[in-house]
């Protein structure tokens, strides 16, 4: 088991965005600390700011104010290029709608982060194959997303998040588009990944999904209500 250390830390994070001329305060001073090998579920009703929070934690978005640190480095000081590298190698992201590229095969989708990491083609294929085999899609590698079921697509997306061996995995409503049985299968994968030593943060409004996590953060109106 990896030693316990802080992977990321958000201090007094605010996020305001504009819907037309109306400011929307999605986050209003969130403090959060995520340690290595934690399994956290962020819960809240829709509009509570949970998606905004996970996007900021995943470096897809930046806070309006407040400080966000990844391994003690202030994210706002990174250049665009450094942020791209972080998204590529440090973070794995799983989306509700899978977000696979429709024209690429499962294998190519999984290998995409390796392409941007500058890995050679043969190695890319090898690594992507290895992960797909592990996740049980060994026989679906040449299929395109529209030839796969929802559960299979999400497993491809998880494989893609894992392929660069990130320090932390964020999953935004990973079971939101799946039936409950498939959703449960996906959650089992997350359980297994945590056992393997990964750090996972999921966002959900589903009590069953949150139940898998060891730590639950409840968000309401842009504030942490319960940790």
């Amino acid at each position: 088991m990896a030693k316990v250390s802080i992977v990321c830390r958000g201090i007094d994070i605010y996020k305001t965005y504009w819907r037309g001329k109306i400011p929307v305060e999605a986050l209003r001073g969130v403090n959060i600390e995520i340690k290595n090998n934690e399994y956290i579920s962020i819960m809240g009703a829709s509009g509570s700011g949970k998606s905004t929070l996970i996007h900021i934690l995943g470096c897809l978005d930046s806070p309006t104010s407040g400080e966000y640190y990844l391994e003690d480095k202030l994210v706002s000081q990174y250049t665009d290029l450094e942020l791209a590298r972080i998204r590529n190698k440090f973070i794995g992201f799983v989306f509700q709608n899978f977000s696979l590229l429709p024209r690429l095969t499962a294998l190519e989708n999984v290998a995409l982060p390796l392409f941007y990491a500058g890995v050679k083609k043969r190695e890319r294929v090898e690594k992507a194959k290895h992960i797909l085999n592990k996740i049980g899609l060994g026989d679906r590698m040449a299929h395109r997303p529209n030839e796969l079921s929802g559960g299979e697509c999400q497993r491809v997306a998880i494989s893609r998040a894992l392929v660069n061996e990130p320090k932390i995995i964020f999953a935004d409503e990973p079971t939101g588009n799946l039936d409950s049985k498939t959703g449960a299968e996906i959650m089992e994968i997350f359980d297994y990944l945590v056992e393997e030593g990964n750090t996972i943060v999921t966002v959900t409004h589903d009590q069953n999904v949150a139940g898998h996590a060891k730590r639950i953060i409840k968000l309401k109106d842009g504030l942490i209500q319960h940790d």
Partner: protein
Amino acid sequence: MTNIIGKITLSFQTFKAHRLRSFLTTLGIIIGVTTVIAILSLIEGLNRSVASQIQSIGSDLVFLQKHPMVMAGPRNLEEIANRPDLTPDDAEAITRLSSVDVAIPEISQQASKIKYRDHEVAQTRVTGSDENYSRVNNRFVESGRDFTRDDVLHRRSVGIIGSYVASNLFPEESPVGKELNIRGHRIMIIGVFKEKGAFLGQSMDNFIAIPYTFYEKIYSQRRESVIERAFFGYSVDIKPVPGKIEKAIDEIRELMRRRHGLTFDKPDDFEIGTQQRLMEIYQNITRVGFVAIVAIAAISLVVGGIGIMNIMLVSVAERTREIGIRKAVGASNQNILLQFLTESIILALIGGIIGIIFGVLLARLVSVVSPLKAAVSFWMIVLGFGFSAAVGIFFGIYPARRAASLNPIEALRYE
């Protein structure tokens, strides 16, 4: 390296998905490059043929004329018409210069028709000169004999015909010894010139050379109009001693000024030209055409480029989600920029390549159906390629930058 290949493969995948759209987009470039290649190769073909024609007149000739070689712009025709005519005596005097090998008088007109039994030729040029005509003009008497000094001195009614006249008037028999009739004068054919070929579809062998003394008898009427007086008189063709062309020009000028009694403060009342000069004048004329073509091509390439920019902007908008996904898994702005830029460059290059192929085919077609001979050079293909790549870069950079600057989370939310 793998990155470049990866990007190119990626681009082709996109084009395959939108085959018709990609083709229509490149149409502007295809048309632009086709035009450039076709017209450039025709101009080049023209240039080569003119160059070889000018050379075949005779190497390093100097021409002495009453009128300028090319009348560019409005000139005082009256002034030119009032200059003293050049004469065969001038040619003789010039021949005696130390830097000159030989000089001949030359005068010509077009005969409307020449007949022999049931055959006839039209627009045949009748040229009066002397016994050195073929020597100066790089002509060669193939059958029969050349002129002699006596033919000229005794004003003999003899002529040497070009091969075009020979083959059209005498398809089955030898022309030597036959008689032709021009303006009521009988001319005995004593020889046939070797063929020189066609120039811009016009035969250079449709002419008949006769002694200038005899020519003066046939065309004896006075030249009345300004144009006739300015242009229809004698000129002198001079073959200088090899390597002394500059000295020859100086000596001829000095001699002619003396013969025309010009004082030092008066300008020349004759014109001296060289083949070099002729070539330059010709090149100046084609350069104008060349610039016009480049301008037209530039316009069509800009139009083509805007087409590419337009379709790339559409493509960026359509693929906003894709861009978001790529950025989420670690694509940098530069990665996205290069992806879209590669696409627009390849799109433009495909248009360029198709344009080059069409242009070459079009030039070939023109060569087959018309007397213009196209000459496709390597530099034109490089030019076509370079132009289309430049268009791809120039008009692709804005859409690509737009794609690259998209915020990942907004791109991901885009439906």
